[in-house]
């Protein structure tokens, strides 16, 4: 895709119009608005139905997770990873333990890596189901969200059988995973994957061809390719703009180099492309789950790691492909303490959200909801 728009640095493009009290209206959307997916507040200046300026205000859910990491041990911090991004918890845990393992230099058993791939992909599915379901709900369709949440319940049931909790799994460990797969779990998973493929066909038939849905998403909120890269978008947002940037192939980790991952790319750059990338990533996740199940090796699920994890002095940067994009952890160890000296979370939702003021400029008020939903943010991770 080529773009005619020239990329202007952000400090030069803010030549905004003066406030005109006779026709401008300041509209506050959120922080309790249902279509802001949490506690996002948007202060918008409207002229008629058009948005002149939009200022996101975030931080309502700030809990200081990075500060908490500094006062918890390496093993104790895993449990907090479930809480900054509460839709795709397993992926956050993977980023955290991956950084700790890189600091420690520990080699993870292959069976654990394959189990991680399975739960990662299931977690990605559960996040995309919420993303797609609530997105079409924002645009006025009631039925698909019930389908999505029905299937998501089955994924949560699988996680419950695996680790004992439905939402805050606390399943990953530095050096492996907590429990091996229970008896019969793989059979249940296989049955679920079969049904899930059928649901995706149904969902696509119901949503993708829907005239109202297409009218509200095709050509709306277009992000050109160079703008997507310059604004550091990641995940389905950048792949919807035609950039095949997927951390599973760009910086492969875990068992992903042994599996043939095919990033889903669409070239429209609009809301519909981003929706379609999410839908087809779920199909890709089914394929990867089946591939990992077929190649699942035997052996231990946990490397020999001391109870008191105390890595040598150093720093590590570990990246996973989260459900929303490039989810990275930069972890620093001082070599003395059992706690991370610093653990910085690079949240994809936080970085993806900053393109919103640029995208909604000149759009109608109704398009703001469509564009915000297509970026697919989780406020727990924006605010951390």
């Amino acid at each position: 895709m080529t773009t005619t728009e020239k990329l202007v640095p952000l400090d030069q493009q803010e030549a905004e119009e003066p406030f005109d009290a006779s026709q401008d209206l300041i509209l506050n959307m959120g922080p309790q608005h249902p279509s802001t997916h949490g506690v996002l507040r948007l202060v918008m200046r409207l002229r008629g139905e058009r948005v002149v300026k939009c200022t996101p205000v975030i931080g309502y859910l700030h809990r200081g997770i990075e500060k908490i990491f500094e006062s918890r041990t390496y093993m104790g911090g895993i449990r907090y990873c479930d809480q900054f991004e509460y839709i795709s918890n397993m992926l956050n845990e993977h980023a955290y333990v991956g950084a700790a393992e890189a600091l420690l230099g520990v080699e993870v058993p292959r069976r654990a890596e394959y189990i991680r791939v399975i739960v990662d992909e299931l977690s990605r599915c559960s996040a995309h189901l919420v993303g797609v379901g609530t997105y079409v709900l924002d645009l006025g369709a009631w039925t698909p969200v019930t389908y999505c949440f029905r299937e998501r319940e089955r994924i949560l049931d699988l996680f419950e059988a695996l680790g004992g909790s439905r939402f805050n799994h606390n399943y990953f460990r530095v050096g492996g995973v907590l429990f091996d797969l229970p008896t019969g779990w793989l059979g249940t998973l296989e049955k679920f994957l079969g049904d899930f493929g059928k649901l995706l066909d149904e969902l696509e038939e119901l949503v993708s061809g829907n005239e109202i849905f297409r009218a509200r998403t095709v050509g709306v909120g277009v992000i050109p390719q160079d703008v997507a890269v310059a604004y550091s978008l990641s995940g389905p947002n950048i792949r919807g703009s035609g950039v095949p940037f997927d951390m599973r192939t760009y910086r492969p980790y875990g068992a992903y180099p042994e599996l043939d991952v095919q990033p889903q790319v669409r070239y429209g750059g609009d809301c519909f492309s981003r929706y379609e990338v999410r839908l087809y990533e779920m199909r890709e996740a089914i394929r990867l789950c089946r591939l990992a199940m077929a190649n699942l090796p035997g052996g231990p699920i946990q490397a020999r790691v001391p109870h008191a994890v105390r890595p040598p002095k150093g720093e590590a940067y570990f990246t996973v492909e989260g459900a929303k994009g490039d989810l990275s952890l930069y972890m620093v160890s001082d070599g003395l303490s059992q706690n991370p000296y610093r653990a910085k979370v690079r949240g994809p939702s936080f970085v993806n959200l900053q393109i919103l003021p640029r995208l909604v400029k000149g759009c109608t008020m109704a398009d703001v909801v469509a564009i915000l939903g297509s970026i697919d943010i989780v406020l727990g991770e924006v605010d951390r």
Partner: protein
Amino acid sequence: MVLNVRRKPAAPPAPRYRQAAETISGKYGQHLVGPIAFEERALKLEADPAGLRELALALRDDPALGFNYLSCVSGVDMKDHIQVVYHVHSLANVLTAQLRVKLDRDNPVVDSLVPVWPGANWLERETYDLVGVQFAGHPDPRRILTDDDFVGHPLRKDYLPPAYRQHGSKA
């Protein structure tokens, strides 16, 4: 303490990283502090704070490097200084670089990289908010995660949280 851990052997960096390192140290060596270090999949550079923006522009625009994607900005309080760490990717050449600047702890000021990578906007605001690094030339230098009237920078090591009040305590 002897760690009873089976260590993964460190893999050598790919040849393209060596080529990139030679390009950087050959052309833009005047902005660097110390030699370029390698990780398995990253170049580690330390930049002179005064030449950070020139180095960042060169990293982005040199066709042999092409670091066009800023991934992460992290501020770390190292007690005697503050360091800001940038992680950048080159999507065309499949490279990752870690760019580090060391700043004076009492007056941490560094050039903003928003004109180079617009995605740095909120990441730098967050670093200002939590670690207290001032980014000169930032278009919107406000706090982002905490309140506008919040006092202090929580991720500084000497930050004291407000007194922990319990029922019946005098604190």
